[in-house]
């Protein structure tokens, strides 16, 4: 392909790069105990939560930023970040129509069906803007079934007993550097509770957007699926274009009680920075699920955005016969760096896990799969299958695979396979001679490569993810 066409396509603008002019209620930059007390006060939190935050902060002070990931970036100045930014005015919202029209416009640009009358798909959305949850749709309908879904702060007010019981039960306050930071300063996020035996009538969804300058987004998501319940949850992310790197350090905890099933899907499209690697989001996320007896947790992620991705959605297969799944497509184009994978910790007997990871590297992108499969002493009859495939587009990018396999039980069956390849000339030639353009051919081959993962996504997301992949990649083959 000609150099011009290549440049044109790789310079494709980030579609979601707009800034919404909403007056924000911000804390001064920097982090200290006062800021944490301020966040907690602003949100009117009970004492136990403030204590928990302060404990996390004290622990965080003793920790070092991890350096083992295959990513490179300039040190982050944690004192220059604004830890709390809320769109103002913030009053109690009775219905969706009361949401600030500027905000609503922003979400419309993102294509989030915030206003119920515009809705076609059956998805309940909780939208998080900078650090604060602004609106939740379809609340009443969910309440009929006893499903609690909304912002984390609301849940703290209305269901403190659930928060106290489950918060930190999967990702403890001092789990790792970024999780500890999040535990200390998280401002909002989503909370969902599915009661015993209930099949959630619709997909739950959260949309995250970072808007204000120099803010970090530290949201916390907690999903509890009580015995025998079922829920599917979608998460989407965008951010405006900024020259500065913005920090996003979220924590997601999933609790699947006996017999429950949680399906968690992510399409992450944070601003990846420009072609020279200026700006973009640092996406340092801790996601973990605990599955009790016969429970099933499935993570599906499509990671196309962020300057740096550092995330390992994990499953602790605590109960006997529990099942963990991880399906991932990670794409690194231009100067993007992704170090992502999963951990499958087999504790219970006959626990099973499947890992399918597809990494795509283009431009100067660096893509690493890092995963751990641990078969514990008592995990008799445990089974794991892992497959990590990498696709290289261009000769300046890199694809890396770092699997860790720890087996402490001889009855376990563990398999790991990995391949690395590039788009074959003969595949391209075949498509071209059938009349497809170079771009369409590449897009088709890449989508074929990622198909195994994309088919795990709920329908609405699968279409978007496919488009995203095509958009982020077109023209990167020269």
């Amino acid at each position, binding site marked *: 392909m000609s150099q011009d066409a290549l440049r044109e396509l790789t310079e494709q603008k980030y579609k979601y790069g707009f800034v919404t002019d909403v007056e924000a209620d911000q804390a001064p930059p920097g982090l200290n105990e006062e800021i944490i007390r301020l966040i907690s006060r602003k949100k009117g939190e009970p004492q136990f939560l403030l204590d928990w935050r302060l404990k996390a902060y004290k622990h965080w002070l003793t920790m070092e930023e991890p350096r*083992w990931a*295959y990513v490179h970036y300039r040190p982050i100045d944690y004192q220059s970040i604004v830890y709390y930014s809320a769109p103002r005015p913030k009053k109690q919202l009775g219905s969706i129509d009361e949401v600030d029209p500027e905000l609503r416009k922003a979400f419309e640009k993102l294509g989030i069906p915030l206003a119920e009358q515009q809705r076609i798909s059956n998805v309940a959305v909780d939208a998080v803007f900078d650090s604060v949850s602004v609106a939740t749709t379809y609340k009443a309908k969910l309440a009929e079934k006893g499903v609690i879904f909304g912002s984390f702060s609301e849940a703290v007010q209305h269901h403190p007993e659930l928060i106290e019981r489950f918060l930190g039960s999967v990702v403890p306050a001092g789990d790792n550097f970024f999780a500890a930071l999040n535990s200390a300063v998280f401002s909002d996020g989503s909370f969902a509770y599915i009661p015993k035996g209930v099949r959630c009538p619709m997909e739950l969804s959260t949309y995250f957007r970072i808007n204000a300058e120099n803010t970090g987004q530290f949201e916390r998501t907690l999903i509890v699926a009580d015995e025998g319940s079922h829920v599917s949850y979608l998460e989407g992310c965008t951010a405006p274009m900024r020259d500065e790197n913005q920090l996003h350090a979220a924590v997601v905890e999933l609790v699947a009680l006996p017999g429950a099933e949680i399906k968690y899907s992510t399409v992450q499209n944070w601003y990846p920075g420009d072609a020279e690697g200026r700006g973009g989001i640092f996406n340092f996320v801790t996601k973990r699920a605990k599955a009790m007896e016969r429970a099933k947790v499935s993570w599906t992620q499509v990671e196309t955005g962020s300057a740096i991705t550092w995330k390992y959605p994990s499953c602790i297969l605590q109960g006997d016969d529990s099942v963990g799944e991880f399906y991932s497509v990670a794409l690194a184009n231009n100067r993007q760096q992704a170090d992502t994978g999963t951990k499958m910790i087999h504790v219970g007997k006959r626990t099973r896990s499947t890992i399918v990871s597809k990494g795509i590297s283009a431009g100067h992108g660096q893509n690493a799969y890092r995963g751990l499969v641990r078969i514990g002493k008592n995990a008799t009859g445990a089974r794991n299958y892992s497959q990590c495939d*990498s696709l*290289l*587009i*261009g*000769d*300046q*990018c*890199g*694809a*890396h*695979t*770092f*699997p*860790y*396999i*720890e*087996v*402490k*039980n*001889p*009855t*376990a*069956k*563990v*398999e*790991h*396979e*990995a*391949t*690395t*390849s*590039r788009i074959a000339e003969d595949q391209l030639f075949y498509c071209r001679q059938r009349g497809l353009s170079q771009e369409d051919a590449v897009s088709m081959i890449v989508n074929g490569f990622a198909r195994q993962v994309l088919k795990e996504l709920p329908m609405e997301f699968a279409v978007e993810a496919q488009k995203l992949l095509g958009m982020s990649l077109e023209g990167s083959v020269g």
Partner: protein
Amino acid sequence: MNRAEESLQAALARPAPAGEPGFLAALRRAGADDFGRLLLPTTRHEEWRYTSLAGLADLALAPAEPGAAALPAGFALPPAPRLVLVNGRIDPSRTDLAGLPPGARVGSLAAAIRERPGAVEPLLGRGPFGDHAFAALSDALFADGLHLELPAGVAVEAPIHVVHLTLAGAGQAVGAFPRSLLLLGEAARAVVVEHWTGSGSYLAAGLTQASLGERSALELVRVQDEAPGAFHVGLVGVSQLGGSRFTSRSVALGARLARVETRAVLAGEETENHVDGLYVASGSQVHDHFIHVDHARPHGLSREWVKGILDGSARGVFTGRVLVRAGAQKTDASQVSSNLLLSEEATVDTRPQLEILADDVKCSHGGTVGQLDEDALFYLRSRGLDRATARALLTWAFAAEMVERLPAPVREGVRRLVTARLPDGARLQEAA
């Protein structure tokens, strides 16, 4: 600092042997300084994550003295040409270098440094073991080892045996740091067989460096049968020029804890690198294989295959890392770690890693961990074999694949050592 580190620091503080050339004194000083900074690795080091040296930390290591002590029971010296080192120093009475072709220099590294410092100096660095505590120790403390230098076109047909004996007296642990340097000129060929054994409680930390000229071929066989109280750390550094072929075949049987670390840089085009490993561990033994292959140029081929048999509460560790640098197109690399667990308590940790910065490559890795196949056991029993013999036979079959790859002159000896280590291996001996 723990006891081992204190005793090593004391050894490092002793003055270097007199009469060494200036470059060596500088190398030793840098090694001592680096070890003082690094100290022994702990499981907090990513590369030592699964291998704890806590047991070594309790040993106070005395510098190994030269000695003509008796050979360990059951150990027979291999045929000439052979070089015998006792506690890291050459034992002239047992060394016999007959049968070498003209032009081949085979002998003591210490003598080569004395006689031809200019030729040895440029090659005596730490190579790919830059910030490695044991390489730093080797620089600071090595006394002697094999020096092999083959001019262009010289081929040594008979295997060159190097026997590393470490003999610790009762109640006193010792440390030995043999160092070998293997230089092969264009199209030269050699087979080097290292035998590691000893008695008592000791640390044997060897560093072998090989530099392969264009189209040369080196096969390095390591038979590690150290005493049950030994800690074995074997570092093998390799640099390869175009068209050369390096083959490492490691058989690890003994020691309380053993780690073999092979690091190869494929610096020329169309190089081949093969690293095979077989280990048999039982009781509370820890066996660790660490392999790093750096594909720096196009058309390289590398094959890593390590098989482990674990019984008792033994631990096996495999780390394989293939780095394909930008521009190293048409690289073909594969890594396989296969493990057989014979008991409830045995554990395996494996990390087959790929780091790929070129787009036209073929790289794969695989890892398996499993037990003996019940169907195969049933088949053998239906043919009249008792359960123990059937198990022994299948276990041997798993190991045999690696043993058969060894060069013919050492195969039979290794077969006997391996079967003696297998559970119910005696049954196989009877059958043979």
